[in-house]
């Protein structure tokens, strides 16, 4: 996201970047989308502090512990298990008796199974239920000290009793990170490949273009299905496989921009000044190709997110334990009696993509020197 890099700069901005920033801000829709997106992104980056089945801080017998980052054996609190379950009543009572604990607002992880859910199967959002209903399975009912808003399911649960909001927060983070890494890597590879072909032309261009044609005719989806049945896909394996095919998308436009611009008079002027090829490509041609690239980047980003989501939806994506929007959607599809699953997944994906496209448009405007705003 170049828009982000434009803005997260030290205050000493050059006049050019000030102008770009002003242009970016002048696009109100993109500017607001950027801040909304940034808010969600930062919020979910710290997902462990927002939705976790462990307290953020624990004071136990005069010792400050950070269970969100460190696995403490239960023996520390007088138990016998290898890893402490902070949601267990025995442990809670032990800690509360000897200190205090600071919980995140949502006391579930994306994989936490709530043993006190009101009904068997998928539970509706808590705001559709009365407090009596929410607390009915707790040992002391409404009076139970454990039945607090942090243990409510604000967006309900899935069929396995896992909190939807927690899954959403963790799934959003992994989707965006995956999309960002994939976009950045495939843009770098694509721009370099396109730039070389366009600038040097001739045989380099001819051969590389034919290779790309052959490469793009490989059916990537089937290849992905085959590979994911051989090696268990994790974040990086999936990223690598998708990267193999996604870098091609930018080559065409970057190549076209370089082919068009390499005989411009100002490029000739730079040659006459003795500027090196690499520098001409970087200073003179890349900014030209950048508008086209940036126009495509939000689409690549949202495309990457959509690809990951759809692979998860089909069951060929990330491992089952990983949080994912795609799996949320597929569960929503299989349990139509719990519409909050599908609705939550759909709205999240739709809003995320819309924000990305609005930001992308604003970034594109910001880099266009001919664009003027009133």
């Amino acid at each position, binding site marked *: 996201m170049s828009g982000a890099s434009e803005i997260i700069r030290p205050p000493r901005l050059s006049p*050019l970047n000030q102008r770009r920033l002003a242009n970016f801000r002048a696009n109100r829709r993109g500017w607001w989308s950027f801040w909304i997106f940034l808010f969600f992104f930062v919020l979910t980056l710290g997902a462990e502090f927002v939705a976790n089945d462990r307290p953020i801080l624990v004071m136990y017998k005069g010792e400050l512990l950070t269970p969100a980052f460190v696995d403490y054996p239960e023996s520390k609190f007088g138990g016998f298990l290898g890893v402490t379950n902070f949601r267990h009543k025995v442990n809670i009572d032990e800690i509360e008796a000897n200190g205090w604990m600071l919980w995140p607002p949502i006391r579930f992880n994306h994989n936490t199974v709530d043993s006190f859910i009101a009904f068997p199967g998928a539970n509706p959002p808590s705001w559709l239920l009365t407090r009596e209903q929410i607390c009915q399975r707790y040992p002391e009912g409404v009076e139970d000290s454990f039945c607090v808003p942090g243990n409510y399911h604000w967006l309900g649960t899935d069929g396995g009793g896992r909190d939807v909001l927690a899954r959403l927060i963790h799934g959003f983070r992994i989707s965006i990170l995956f999309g960002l890494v994939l976009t950045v890597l495939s843009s770098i590879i694509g721009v370099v490949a396109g730039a070389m072909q366009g600038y040097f032309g001739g045989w380099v261009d001819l051969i590389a273009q034919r290779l790309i044609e052959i490469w793009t005719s490989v059916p990537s989806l089937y290849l992905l299905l085959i590979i994911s049945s051989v090696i268990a896909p994790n974040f990086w394996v999936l990223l690598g496989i998708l990267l193999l095919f996604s870098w091609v998308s930018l080559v065409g436009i970057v190549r076209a921009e370089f082919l068009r611009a390499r005989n411009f008079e100002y490029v000739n002027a730079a040659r006459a*000044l*003795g500027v090196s090829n690499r520098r001409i490509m970087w200073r003179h041609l890349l900014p030209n190709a950048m508008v086209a690239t940036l126009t495509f980047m939000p689409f690549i980003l949202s495309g990457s997110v959509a690809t990951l989501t759809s692979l998860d939806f089909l069951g060929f994506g990330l491992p089952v334990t990983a949080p994912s929007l795609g799996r949320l959607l597929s569960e929503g599809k299989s349990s139509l009696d719990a519409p909050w699953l599908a609705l939550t997944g759909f709205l999240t994906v739709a809003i995320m993509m819309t924000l990305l496209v609005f930001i992308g448009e604003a970034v594109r405007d910001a880099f266009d020197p001919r664009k003027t705003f009133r």
Partner: protein
Amino acid sequence: MSEPLLSVRDLSVHFGAGAAVDKVSFDLTAGETLALVGESGSGKSITALSLLGLQPPTASVTGQVHFDGTELVGAATATLRAIRGNQVGMIFQEPMSSLNPVHTIGKQIGEVLAVHQGLRRNAARARTLDLLDAVGIPDPQGRIDDYPHQLSGGQRQRAMIAMALANEPKLLIADEPTTALDVTVQAQVLDLLKSLQQAHGMALLFITHDLSIVRHIADRVCVMTKGEMVETGSTQTIFAAPAHHYTRQLLAAAPAGDPAPLPAQSANVVSTQDLKVWFPIRRGLLRRTVGHIRAVDGVDLGIRKGETLGVVGESGSGKSSLGYALLRLIPSTGRIVLLGNEVQSRSWNALRPLRKHMQIVFQDPFGSLSPRMSVGEIVGEGLKVHMPALSAQERDVKVAAALKEVGLEVATAARYPHEFSGGQRQRIAIARALVLEPNFLVLDEPTSALDVSIQSQIIDLLRDIQQRRQLSYLFISHDLRVVKALAHRLIVMRNGQVVEQGEAAAIFADPQQAYTRQLLAAAFDLAAPPNVTDDRLPPPHTSE
């Protein structure tokens, strides 16, 4: 005095709040030629377009336009369409883009005949042949089935004229019809327009920025600036006694003066021996080279310190290729010596130190500056290459000095090229070349994209800089009046070869070769060469 054919009263064209044309009034009688003169942005073209309701859809037109008893402002589309192309013909500046490249010229002229006169097939073809013959295209039988790209620039403009004349219009509007043409071709086209006008008794509304053409062709002149008509009168009166100060300014703006005095004998800064730029023609499946286009064919030249060598010739004569080859921007053979160093044999990297000493200013001030770099970055770029040791502050100081030297404010460094006019952009391009303190500058038509008044400013600037720094120029131009103001010596090129060379003053006073005489006559007297044929094919390459 007879009833005017075209009568325009208080014509105004507004784009939003601003007026592009402000209360313009003029009359035009049959058989008369009226010239609308002004610099770019004066509203002369939009005036002509709005006469026929061809203004852009965002414009609003008010006022009255009476043509042959019909009110045209606010007239129905059908009425206007019946008049356009039928009673009023139009010719535009750029003949290549005004003709459809995928249809033959015969078909395009035939279409006009079919739409307005209902002529079909053989009748249309016969009439088209007549028209092509009338506009002086040689061998119309052989040319009628040619596509526009197969014709030369002059022939294309003749085809456009044939199309405009197809329905024997009462009024012909010619919008800078010769600006894109060579001087000799320009003279021919002007002659043609004049004789056709006399033969058909047409009224001619001629739009141009070139005063020498006006003097040659017009009966009456309207001078426009900033959308207003500041002066109107007969051609003699306006040229003899211009009343408005803008007209006087325009008349005085023609490039004038003499080249800066030469220093005492000095050595050659640049010289070439037998310089050749040959582009291979490749044919067939295996792309074998079957021949060459000789863009530059064996040129010897030498330029001394502080001297300007003018290179003149028509388009396609290889003058731009010569300039590019000197800087090794295109491959060439033959010897090039710069300050005693061989240029030709060096590798690209070994050539870099020499590039500091030779720089170029291009023709198009809009294309030669990167739109995505600030002026400061553009001017400072060469410093980064050749003086990498400079700190950012030292570089800024040099950039500021270069901008000042070309007459720009230092504050412009932070702005982008699109915020500047053509003349200012050309100054920036000159600053970019000067900041390296070169010894030799190639000026590739640096003034031809500019208005006349700006042209003379740039010429004065170049002359000043030359005098101050003892620079050597290779000045490439098709405009002999500009060359006369700057060049000490001259070479005349045709088809890649030097036709004539010598002291500029001597050549202007007494040209030895017939071709040079033709060129001079066409440029200064707008006289067409005696053999009225320009059946020269368009240059197969476009290095200009």
